[in-house]
């Protein structure tokens, strides 16, 4: 049984919870995995640090919370500061390149940086930051397929913004593939 624990984090309003919802839906409905999502339910829902967690497994998830996250996506300084130290050696750290100032080079981690907010703004609105980041996450990890992620979007983003959200996802996805030197030609999309 292989189990992966993932934490998505940032500040309220960045679409962090949505990131976990889209990924969880993609995995459990379209990638034939079991996924359990939990989220912070405190007064931090807006503006402050915000996190959502996913436990992904080939079998039914028993313990619903993460205990040893292997992947951290941090889209804000506060989220990075709060969570990076819980990653184990070899863990994957994805940060928003222009919002997070690193506290060291993290030689023990697989560090990946994406200017998600800038790309989202280039697409017209920083509200798409989370989709750029998700596209990047999908490209640089082996958690979920791009195909499943795109299938999961309807219902989780407003219908009239579906196309632009897919565009944002593709932008992050391609950037991620280029960054790690993976060829996009054979990938489902």
């Amino acid at each position, binding site marked *: 049984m292989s189990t992966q624990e993932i934490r998505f984090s940032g500040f309220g309003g960045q679409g962090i919870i949505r990131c976990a*919802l889209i990924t969880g839906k993609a995995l459990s409905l379209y990638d034939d995995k079991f996924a359990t999502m939990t989220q912070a*339910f405190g007064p931090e829902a807006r503006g402050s640090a915000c996190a959502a967690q996913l436990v992904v497994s080939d079998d039914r998830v028993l*313990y*619903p919370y993460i205990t040893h996250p292997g992947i951290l996506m941090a889209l804000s300084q506060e989220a990075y500061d709060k969570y990076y130290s819980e990653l184990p050696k070899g863990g994957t750290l994805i940060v928003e390149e222009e919002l997070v100032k690193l506290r060291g080079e993290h030689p023990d981690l697989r560090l990946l940086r994406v200017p998600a907010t800038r790309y989202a703004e280039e697409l017209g609105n920083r509200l798409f930051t989370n989709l750029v980041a998700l596209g990047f996450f999908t490209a640089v990890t082996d958690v979920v397929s791009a195909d499943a992620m795109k299938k999961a979007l309807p219902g989780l983003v407003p219908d009239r913004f579906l196309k632009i959200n897919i565009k944002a996802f593709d932008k992050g996805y391609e950037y991620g593939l280029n960054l790690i030197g993976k060829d996009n030609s054979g990938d489902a999309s």
Partner: protein
Amino acid sequence: MKTERSGASEKAKASVRRRYAGAETVAADPKGVDSGPHFMDGDHALAEGALAAGCRFFAGYPITPSTEAAERFAERAPEVGALFIQMEDELASIAALIGAAWAGQKCMTVTCGPGFSLMVENLGLAAMTETPMVIANVQRGGPSTGLPTLTAQQDMMQAKYGPHGDNAIIALSPDSPQECFDLTVEAFNLSEFYRVPVIILTDETVGHMHEKVVIPPADQIKVIPRNNYSGPKEDCRPYKFDCQGGHPMVRAGDGYNFHITGLTHNEKGYPVMTAEQNVKVVTHLMEKINGNADEIVRLEEDQIDGAEVVVVSYGITSRIAVKAIQDARKEGIKVGSLRMITIWPFCEKRIREISAKVKAIVVPEINYGQMVLEVERNAGGRCKVISVNHCGGAVHDPQVILDAIRKASQ
């Protein structure tokens, strides 16, 4: 002794046994069924289960961690043709349910500990007047306002013993968003058949966590429709004290004269305040549930035969327990699992059977030790009973349950 004999004679009067399993069912109304796979939290699944079961009336007051269920119902109500009312408080919410039920509606409310406490008075009225309704208590840490956003299983006893006087209710405990859907449908069916409030005792963890929930096509969801009396006026009886379910409701406005009161009443519903009448009423209220426990109680068992230790658990804790059980088995400990899907009536018979065969029963729960008292009572000293309690705010560390299993096996 007199009470026992009276109860027995009431039970003997029942000439034809009406069985829950044999109750007439119909396919769910497709309008309320959002068929297909979803990635959904437990709270939303509660609302979807209610709509699928034919609930078209919801009155409630928002309270964390149950609010998402009310939101979902409110959002879906216009498209389904249901009514959602945000009431001024929880007292009014359950009072509205009693009214709606007697007007012919299947009805529901959701709340958590502080709100449930306010509902308790009218919960007793609903039980006494044999009014079907479903109440979901998405438990959070207490006592009092306690831990609004954090999990607990601390209202297990309150569900049954909250109201004053003797009364029996049914309570179910889902372990996942999928079961929040499935058991809400079941709760409505039990509630309709036994004419009793059915309480879904879930918790913040299950209520707020998202998982895959598959809602079947409407024609695969069997629901017990409201059974309204339609015979001659002179034979109309809203009550029948025969210790069974399956007696029809009488709908207000259908032209029948009857009375609904919290006072001890006769079969037409009018007050008869004597000790003799209370024997009939109380015996019926208790026995229609406890006397039919074999039909109502649902358990999930794993490797109990040959086990030296059995873990008895429910709700979210049962999933944490399975993790501990798997680890214990790797160490060679013969450990079985009994998951209580039905909390009330309690699975007395099964605990008595198991306690005669095992060294110990381990009971993890997110409270200071509540259902463990029922386990102890029914184990009757035949085996050790080990409580693995937790004061709320989080789920157990599986290691703590594993340690208890190890200790129990020695």
